[in-house]
């Protein structure tokens, strides 16, 4: 059992509170990604689990041990850092085996563990090289190897792929996922890249200003964001937002912005939205849900400012009323800038948020 449990954990540096009381339970063998903009407290949270930062108050448990006051070495975590943090004067093999050597493991055992790690990570050919003779991806694999031989309760990854180039990052993403499947160890992974979070995690924890905005599996985050922050953060290109209000129009509901954009709401959605009539709300629609032109779908006029042909589809970037709006249109559309196009909106994929609190409504 290597469940990680944070109970009412807070952290302040000097007088500045960076983490208000935080509760988070990470299940045994779960792959959890902490994601959020820089300064949201995700790395601090990870470092508190590792013991590199002391929690100001609250309790951290790994398995059934209370580790809140333990020093990092006694928590049986392994950590992989963004900048690899290899020992530059040791070879790859020495780097991987150093922790074991210090703990007094026998030479034969170290050798066995190192070669096993090297086999898993394809480092066999480089065992006698120094880190400065390795590429970025290989260095990060050495760092992961150093973490594996520890046989930890929990793996902690602190933005491990941020220093790699885009192609290598995608490869390593898959490698770490496979590693998790093979080792069956709890992983806490910090990244600011929402694509990384979505592709790797069993569960994504979206953080903002030290708070957890939403913790859910990737698809739930994408389809049912709990609030404006999560909706804006998850998805690329990010969700379009129109500010306006819900109004009663005969028996039906409609959404209307101050500058005249009008979206009628189908009966299937209006039932749960009825409570919010008259309140200022924000309508959210992802660009990828503006592509299918079904006659019954409402449309929004968008004044195109720029066109980005991406291959599979094209992005039309412009404004709807006064709000910025990105629409995904079929590849090869004959749209040029300054056109005004009518963008269809999939009514089932619309999101509504209360403007006052940012909370999602109507689900």
């Amino acid at each position, binding site marked *: 059992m290597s469940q990680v449990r944070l109970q009412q954990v807070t952290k302040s540096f000097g007088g500045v509170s960076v983490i208000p009381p935080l509760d988070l339970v990470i299940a045994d063998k779960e792959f959890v990604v902490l994601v959020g903009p820089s300064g949201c407290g995700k790395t601090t949270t990870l470092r508190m689990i590792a013991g590199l930062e002391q929690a100001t108050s609250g309790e951290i448990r790994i398995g059934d041990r209370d580790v809140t006051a333990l020093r990092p070495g006694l928590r049986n975590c392994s950590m992989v850092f*963004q900048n690899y943090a290899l020992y530059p004067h040791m070879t790859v093999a020495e780097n991987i085996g150093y922790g074991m050597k210090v703990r007094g493991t026998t030479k034969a055992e170290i050798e066995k563990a190192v070669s096993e790690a090297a086999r898993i990570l394809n480092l066999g050919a480089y065992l006698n090289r120094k880190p400065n003779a390795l590429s970025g991806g290989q260095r990060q694999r050495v760092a992961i190897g150093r973490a594996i031989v520890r046989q930890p309760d929990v793996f902690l990854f602190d933005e491990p792929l941020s220093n790699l180039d885009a192609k290598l990052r995608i490869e390593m993403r898959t490698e770490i996922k496979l590693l998790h499947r093979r080792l069956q160890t709890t992983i806490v992974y910090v990244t600011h890249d929402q694509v990384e979070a979505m592709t790797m995690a069993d569960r994504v924890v979206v953080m903002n200003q030290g708070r957890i905005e939403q913790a859910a599996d990737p698809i739930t985050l994408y389809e049912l964001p709990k609030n404006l922050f999560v909706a804006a953060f998850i998805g690329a290109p990010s969700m379009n937002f129109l500010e306006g209000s819900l109004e009663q129009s005969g028996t039906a509901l409609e959404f209307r912005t101050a500058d005249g954009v009008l979206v009628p709401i189908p009966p299937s959605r209006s039932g749960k939205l009825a409570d919010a009539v008259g309140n200022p709300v924000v309508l959210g629609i992802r660009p990828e849900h503006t592509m299918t032109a079904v006659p019954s779908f409402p449309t929004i006029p968008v004044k195109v400012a720029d066109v980005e042909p991406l291959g599979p589809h094209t992005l039309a970037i412009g404004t709807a009323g006064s709000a910025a709006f990105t629409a995904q249109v079929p590849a090869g559309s004959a749209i040029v800038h300054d056109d005004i196009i009518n963008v269809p909106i999939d009514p089932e994929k619309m999101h509504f948020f209360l403007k006052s609190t940012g909370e999602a409504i109507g689900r």
Partner: protein
Amino acid sequence: MSVRALKGNGRWWALAGCLLWLAFTFFPLYWVAITSFKSPLGVVGGPTFIPFVDFEPSLSAWNELLSGQRGQFYNTFIASTIVGLSASLLATAIGSMAAYALVRFDFELKLLTALLFVIVAFGGYLIGYNLLGLRQGPSLVYAFVAALTLAVGSSRVRLPGPVLGNSDIVFWFVSQRMFPPIVAAFALFLMYTEIGKMGFKLVDTYIGLTFAYVAFSLPIVIWLMRDFFEALPVEVEEAAMVDNVPTWRIFFGIVLPMSKPGLIATFMITLAFVWNEFLFALFLTSSRWQTLPILVAGQNSQRGDEWWAISAAALVAIIPMVIMAGILSRLMRSGLLLGAIK
């Protein structure tokens, strides 16, 4: 602009400038070297420049120096070597530990504690010496022990007033080198004689001289090593901490190897300081542990300006340092950190 970018005449001017500078810096060394091979008559007879052409070289100065007619040459050379190497090694070792602590750990020192220490140390000494009739040595020891105990004790109590941090401590170290060394040398001599009266001889001993040099090298060592340690990526140490490597092993097994160029540079600077130091050696030694600078200076005063002898002695003082610098600078290659991060 790089020298390589120069074209045509510019290159030759640059080369000429460099050669001129080379001649300028090398001439004194050359002059000392040839003077050491001149006979007394050759020195006083007017300037001569090229051996075998201008003058007939003679080994008389070297003979006199090496045969011991000019003071205990071998003894002095050995004393200088032993004191220089051991003092710089000790200072680099102790200073780098202190510097590492100052970089990686936060210290808090109450100003009141420091004031308490100073007041008790000085006041206690004055009371012991003037009122209680103790001799200087014992009253000094009692006062300092009392002051230290009180300071350590009071740091555990909540005291009002400002709290000093790591940068203040570093400033305090460096500030020890801000006053003229003669102030300290004189006080140190008095203190050593007093301790000598208590039966523990420090003047003209290995321990006394080495101790003084270590103490006076520490500020520079701490100041230099702090910069080197600050440049180290903290993640490497954090990785080791998470891996349950004990702190002393992190320091000796990871931090020190990573800062090898810095350690060597610092050792070299300390060695140069100790090797060339004159004032402390003059005060604190008399015969047995006299160092080379004293011997060189002595050549001048004993029998007038005998430049041939002074030159030979000066060369002996210079050459070991040139050799040391040559060997160590090869080890000081940069790029040792390459591969640790990014």
